[in-house]
């Protein structure tokens, strides 16, 4: 039985739909990310699961039980907020004890459970501090300890790491993942950061405009994007426009506006001349070497070069079209100068083609 099921969950406001027929089935102990840009409905979905927002229609089932009508305080969920939302007038110990006290846990039992929760986030020594005496990272750990202490059936995270600085964020990602493995709580994690979603999750649910775009493993989301939106949102994409070109004998291709022609397996089955949106990821553009057949490459020149640490980014010009490509800093293509001629190749299956969103067909 799935630990959490969302069944055609909808939230409509006058004039806009925040979540449209969202259906998900989450296995026990799974770590699921809801990923999407701001305003995509991910937080709305999370808050409906928490019972803080009432769905317009649809059902929420926890362990097969319909909780849609249950108030938040009877759902047995843990929720970690972006703002941490600690109780500022209580010590760290009392913050963590709050949920346990509501379950009637008392005395030694209470102390043991609080200590255990604090130990699991490595804050054992700080029980008597007040929240404002802690750093942002420590406050976030307290918030996590507070939400797992009552042993909820579902743990919800609402962009919990976005207020932390970059190095701390990486550290917390690993720690949260490790903790979630240890306690084995089914987890729903809302984020707009694809790296965060990919690295932490068993499966990722990509949302846009309140609609589920794809719900699959991080590898599948990355390698086989189901919609144009997913292709253009995941990875480091070049977003381009073009038209489908079909020759009687050859494979389908797209002619980029003012630019070169790219063979694209995704364009098969599309009509000649159809306007399309094209996504080519920076990391999918390969620099050609002597062994690459000439016919399969595009000739252009380096318009700009930027060094970004482990990688070198190039802005490449192909006629009127510009593409960003990257090379490893310690690889053979790291030292290209501006204006140097280059030849690159893109595998046909890495050219993601979708019918143009806002343009009429020719």
């Amino acid at each position, binding site marked *: 039985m799935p630990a959490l099921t969302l069944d055609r969950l909808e939230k409509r406001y006058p004039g806009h739909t925040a979540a449209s027929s969202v259906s998900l089935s989450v296995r026990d102990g799974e770590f699921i990310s809801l990923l999407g840009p701001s305003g995509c409905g991910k937080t709305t979905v999370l808050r409906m699961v*928490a019972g*803080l927002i009432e769905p317009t229609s649809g059902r929420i089932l926890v362990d097969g039980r319909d909780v849609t009508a249950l108030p*938040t*305080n*009877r*759902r*047995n*969920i*843990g*929720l970690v*907020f972006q*703002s941490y*939302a*600690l*109780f*500022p*007038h*209580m010590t760290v110990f009392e913050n963590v004890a*709050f*949920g346990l006290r*509501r*379950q009637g846990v008392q005395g030694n039992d209470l102390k043991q459970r609080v200590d255990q929760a604090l130990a699991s986030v490595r804050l054992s020594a700080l029980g008597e501090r*007040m929240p404002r005496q802690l750093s942002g990272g420590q406050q976030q750990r307290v*918030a996590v300890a*507070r*939400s797992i202490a*009552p042993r909820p059936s579902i743990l919800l995270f609402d962009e919990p790491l976005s207020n932390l600085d970059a190095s701390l964020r990486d550290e917390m990602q690993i720690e949260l993942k490790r903790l979630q493995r240890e306690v084995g709580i089914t987890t729903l994690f809302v984020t707009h950061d694809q790296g965060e979603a990919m690295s932490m999750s068993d499966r990722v649910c990509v949302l846009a405009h309140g609609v589920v775009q794809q719900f699959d493993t991080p590898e599948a989301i990355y390698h086989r994007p189901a919609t144009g939106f997913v292709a253009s949102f995941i990875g480091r994409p070049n977003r381009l426009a073009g038209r489908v070109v079909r020759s009687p004998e050859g494979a389908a291709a797209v002619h980029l506006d003012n630019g070169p022609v790219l063979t694209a397996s995704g364009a098969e089955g599309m009509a000649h001349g159809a306007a399309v949106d094209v996504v080519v990821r920076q990391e999918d553009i390969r620099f050609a070497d002597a062994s690459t057949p000439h016919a399969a490459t595009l000739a252009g020149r380096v318009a700009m070069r930027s060094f970004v640490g482990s990688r070198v980014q190039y802005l490449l010009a192909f006629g009127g079209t510009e593409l960003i490509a990257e090379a490893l800093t310690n690889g053979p293509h790291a030292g290209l100068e501006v204006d140097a001629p280059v030849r690159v190749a893109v595998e046909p299956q890495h050219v993601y083609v979708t019918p143009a969103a806002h343009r009429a067909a020719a």
Partner: protein
Amino acid sequence: MTPRRMTGALLASPLLLLLLLAFVAPVLLMVPLSLHPYEPGTGISAGWTLANYTSIFTDEYYREVVVRTLVLGFGVTAICLLMGYPLAYYIANAGPKMRLALTMLVIFPMLLNLVVRSFGWIALLANRGLVNNLLMDVGLIERPIKMMFNLFGLLVGMSHIFLPFMVLMLVPAIQAISKDVQAAAYTLAASRLRVFWSITLPMSAPGILSGSILVFVLTISALVTPRMLGGPTYKVMATLIYDDFLQTLDWPAGAAMSFALTALTLLVIGLSSRVLKRWGGHA
């Protein structure tokens, strides 16, 4: 002095000068005044005495007035808090339009002159006032109940007059409490009542503190309403000071009583801030 601080001092100096001349100097002049004996019939004499201060504690009449003032101060503050908090809670959680409309309604009575509002209560509470007439007409009572010139009348009238101040201090304090923090308590299996008692109420301590101090200070220093609803005989410290200065011309006693009132105010403010800060975790 750095140029920056010099500029600051210069900018503040006109107001500072005015305050020194018109406020601090008269107060300082009152210190020696309060230490002179007053002889009825002859006036203020040249000798020195502490009697004006000691009599506040020893004289039974003075003691009664001080205690009455304190009871009134705490009573009005408590009533305003109990009646104002639910209203403020509702306003703070209402939509923007409703909040504006309700805030206007709260402010509206303050647009009426204080004397007029106090007189309104006389019309209601007097022996031949609206309330007594109504109760007698209905037959619930045979003789009028005394509702003026006593603690009841002052409590009713002053609670009404100072309630808006309490509400206006409480609303922003309650609004400032993060919705996430309340939601967090709710997800931790707390009932709505528990969220209110354990989270919302303690977190609104700064508003409760500032509202209570404001109402308390306004109440124990109020003159017009106690004079109108208490009459010439049922006195509080403020009316007593007024009469000392302007009726009996016993300036030394009035000055001493003024300092006692100030000291009392500072003491209550100091103590209550400490208690409430600890409770609200802001210490």
